């Protein structure tokens, strides 16, 4: 019985290990700190955004605005750095406040107007992307010595791999996310909402506060992902990060969370992100396989996990009877 709760997570880990073993078997170099370091760096922005998405999905919601918020953040940073002499850290703080408030407002609309998160965050998606467009339609390069400093800082692993600032940032975000989700009252409340809002209300869970908090976190982390993305690309472009929300949703589901909410693990999402990164790395290593296989394989994994969750639910209810 205990297994069913951890089964999706175990399945995710198993898939990851198997996939990595397969990669290693074909390309022994895949098991090097260098590849691992790149895996972390390349997927840092997705990973950070996916942590926010995990909170949203755990609560039974969905946030479609993530990709747009990342693009907005990138453009905002690039333009502000170009136009003013503010220090990047100040700009970072500013943009994080904006995105957190943005998310919080969406949460408030979802709660107080009782509207489906899907539609509300769809409006948010249009709005954030639109504002990014309005700020600048061009790709604005970022040239700042602080950026160069951050990009050049890394921790060298034995074997030549690098843990970059953004790679490390993702790991830190995951760590903090795990603590918040699984070790705080807020985290328990997030799971409670996913289990059922009316029941949560009856049990005294502060539904309004929690909902707003969840979307504020998602907005904040999308902002942080935007900063990461800006460091990764050294530019801000309003057409960037299109569809990242889909990748994030996929990572969360492959990470073993139930899309209907109430069950899942932040750590699972990390592995979900890494599995997706691994597929991409494999395709690059292979050279003959085309990039579209990534999408197809992710789609198949999504389907498999949704089916597995459905099966588990059925099995659980059959067992009860």
């Amino acid at each position, binding site marked *: 019985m205990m297994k069913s709760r951890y089964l999706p997570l175990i399945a995710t880990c198993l898939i990851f290990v198997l996939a990595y073993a397969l990669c290693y078997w074909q390309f022994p170099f895949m098991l090097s700190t260098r590849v691992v370091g790149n895996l972390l760096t390349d997927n840092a922005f997705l990973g950070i955004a996916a942590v926010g998405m995990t909170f949203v999905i755990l609560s039974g919601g969905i946030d479609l605005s993530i990709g747009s918020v990342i693009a907005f953040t990138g453009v905002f940073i690039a333009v502000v750095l170009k136009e003013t002499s503010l220090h990047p850290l100040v700009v970072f703080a500013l943009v994080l406040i904006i995105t957190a408030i943005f998310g919080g407002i969406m949460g408030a609309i979802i709660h107080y107007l*009782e509207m489906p998160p899907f539609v509300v965050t769809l409006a948010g998606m249009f709005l954030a992307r639109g504002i990014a*467009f309005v700020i600048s339609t061009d790709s604005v390069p970022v040239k700042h010595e602080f950026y160069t400093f951050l990009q050049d800082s890394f921790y060298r692993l034995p074997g030549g791999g690098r843990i970059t600032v953004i790679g490390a940032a993702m790991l830190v975000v995951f760590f903090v996310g795990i603590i918040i989700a699984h070790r705080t009252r807020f985290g328990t409340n997030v799971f409670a909402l996913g289990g059922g809002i009316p029941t949560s209300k009856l049990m005294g869970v502060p539904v309004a506060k929690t909902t707003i908090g969840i979307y504020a976190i998602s907005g904040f982390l999308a902002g942080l992902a935007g900063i990461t993305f800006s460091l990764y690309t050294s530019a801000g472009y309003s057409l960037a990060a299109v569809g990242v929300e*889909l990748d994030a949703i996929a990572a969360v589901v492959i990470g073993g969370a139930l899309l209907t909410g109430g069950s899942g693990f932040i750590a699972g999402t990390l592995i979900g992100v890494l599995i997706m990164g691994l597929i991409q790395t494999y395709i690059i290593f292979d050279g003959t396989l*085309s990039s579209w296989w990534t999408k197809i394989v992710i789609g198949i994994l*999504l389907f498999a996990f*949704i089916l597995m969750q459905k099966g588990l639910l059925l099995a659980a209810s059959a067992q009860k009877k």
Partner: protein
Amino acid sequence: MNSLKRYAPQLTTLAIVLLLNYLVFPDFFKIEIANGKLYGTLIDVLNRGAPVALLCVGMTLVIATKGIDLSVGAVMAICGAVAASTVDSGGGVFMALSLALLAGLICGIWNGVLVSVLNIQPIIATLILMVAGRGIAQLITEGAILTFNDEGLIFVGSGSIFSIPMPILIWIAVGIIVTFIVRRTALGMLIESIGINQRASTFSGVNARVLLILVYAVSGLCAALAGTIAAADIRGADANNAGLWLELDAILAVVVGGTSLLGGRFTLIGSLIGAMIIQSINTGILLSGFPPEFNLIIKAAIIVIILVIQSPALQSKYIEYRDRRETGKTPVGKDAAS
């Protein structure tokens, strides 16, 4: 008269948008014939609006059953790719069209089976194809933009009959045919009854399972047509960008048209007007010299306004308020008695 009244909010909105367009661009309503084909901004609106108009026909039926179909954009890409690769490998336009429609049908049935037989939430079920669909399309086009010069297929996108561009004819024809089918048969009512109360409908013998598959299949077919037109228009299948985010435009058109996202009563005509409103806004922004960047912000604003109007919370508050006002008028004697 009655139907005019019913679509009053949509028609008013459309009129206002068109009027605004006219104000910024006095030639807006000018239509001329050149090369045996109608030209003009208004025609352009109708022409460019074709994919969304087609998508929102299927989407309306899906939403009426309390569902949603996120995959239509990806299905467009798949079907465009199928059509393009068919003519490239020597098939004629009919072959291309049939295969594209078949592909759309299969995609739709896949979604329908997930929703109705496996009982997966529509938003989740259609997400799978939304993610994987573009990969499949790229698989067909082998990653490149698959161009073609088959006159027949190109005709579907940019030809004209009686001076009217094909895309316009197609979406209007599909709109009329589907409206005719759902309203002249019992289909429309049965779909609505599922969307309003699936349990009670099943109790009354409505075959919800089959009807659910059917609406997703229709949505797939509409996406196939839209995808073919989009490909024919640019004479190539672009797996990456064909129909990108059009599912969101289609959902928006349905909602603007007056069908509630919570399912139930639907109006295809309203949705089509909604699609034209959206396209007029797009064109209008372009014409006004207003930067196209504002397009998305305006869309966001429309969604927010509609959200507020449709919000169940606000509606119940309003009803409460209205009831309180009404009960305030009832005789005071009752209170005096206690």
